[in-house]
């Protein structure tokens, strides 16, 4: 179970749109709130294009045990820096929180080896959610399966699996 922490970057799913507030599921015990003004270049006239069911990559502005968590897709200087609505297609899946931290470590071997395989886009959320998009559906699913299996595979098993895939 994920516990929201201030400053963490997470992937959330928009579940409701009420007036000027979005309710986002981040995998915690409560739904987080996301204001429509918390996007780069958003004003009262210029609303962001967010629908129910969209994926959002954002960070927590407020996250403590007494209040409802608040997400923003903007950093302290007002720039998006990679946050916001995640594009169409791609595949979202859940892994353990420990694997995410391993993948986020600098010079992660798993990511380097996978990038030798195919080019792909990857978003990692600290709440255990990963979003992957490669050129074809098959490539995407291969990357998803390898990332899910990285949980319990050793380094040699992973190299063997990658060799088998790239050989095919």
């Amino acid at each position: 179970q994920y516990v929201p922490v201030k400053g963490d970057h997470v992937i959330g799913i928009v579940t409701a749109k009420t007036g000027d507030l979005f309710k986002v599921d981040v995998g915690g015990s409560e739904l987080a709130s996301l204001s429509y003004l918390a996007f780069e270049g958003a004003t009262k006239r210029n609303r962001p294009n967010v629908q129910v069911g969209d994926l959002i990559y954002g960070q927590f502005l407020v996250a403590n045990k007494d209040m409802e968590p608040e997400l923003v897709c903007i950093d302290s200087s007002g720039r998006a820096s990679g946050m916001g609505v995640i594009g169409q297609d791609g595949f979202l899946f859940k892994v353990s929180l420990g694997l995410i931290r391993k993948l986020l470590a600098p010079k992660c071997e798993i990511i380097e080896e996978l990038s030798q395989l195919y080019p792909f886009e990857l978003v990692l959320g600290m709440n255990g959610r990963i979003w992957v998009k490669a050129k074809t559906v098959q490539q995407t699913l291969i990357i998803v399966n390898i990332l899910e299996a990285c949980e319990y595979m050793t380094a040699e098993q992973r190299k063997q699996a990658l060799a088998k895939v790239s050989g095919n």
Partner: protein
Amino acid sequence: PPVSAARLAGERLCSSGEASGGSGTYTRHGFVYASLAGCLRRSGAESGLPVVSVVRDAEAQLLPDVGAVVTCKVCSINSRFAKVHILYIGSTPLKSTFRGTIRREDIRATEKDKVEVYKSFRPGDIVLAKVISLGDAQSNYLLSTAENELGVVVARSEAGVQMVPISWCEMQCPRTHTKDFRKVARVQPQFLQT
């Protein structure tokens, strides 16, 4: 002397020949019935019949008035306001608690837009506040702590120990020495007990 005995609503008290109905009773078919569940009170009226009445509570309910200082406990906080239960009015405890709201702009007198509710109150704090309005249809009294003497009086730290005030905006836990932000009330020295 008034006879007090528990009566149920709808119970027949006496015939209308013996006594006449007062508050909390009604008369039907020549008898006096109780319309409330409570205590029976019989008043011996000198002229005419004695009057029977049924009262629910011996004392009348004390209601918070606008401008009264009340003691309340914070039950939940939000980025816009804090919800509280009103426990005492002045120094008299209440039998049933009322609900109150302290809006973000009513927490402090100065720098109202820089206020953060999370840095002023937490759930479980005991707060001295003043009633500014009797509230809306949801019967939520509107309270304010925008004075030096109003604010948090008792607060517990994460360790569960009662915190000691350091300044008007900080409190410290005596065991872990961690500082927490609260809107602290400046209690008069004669009311402090060490």
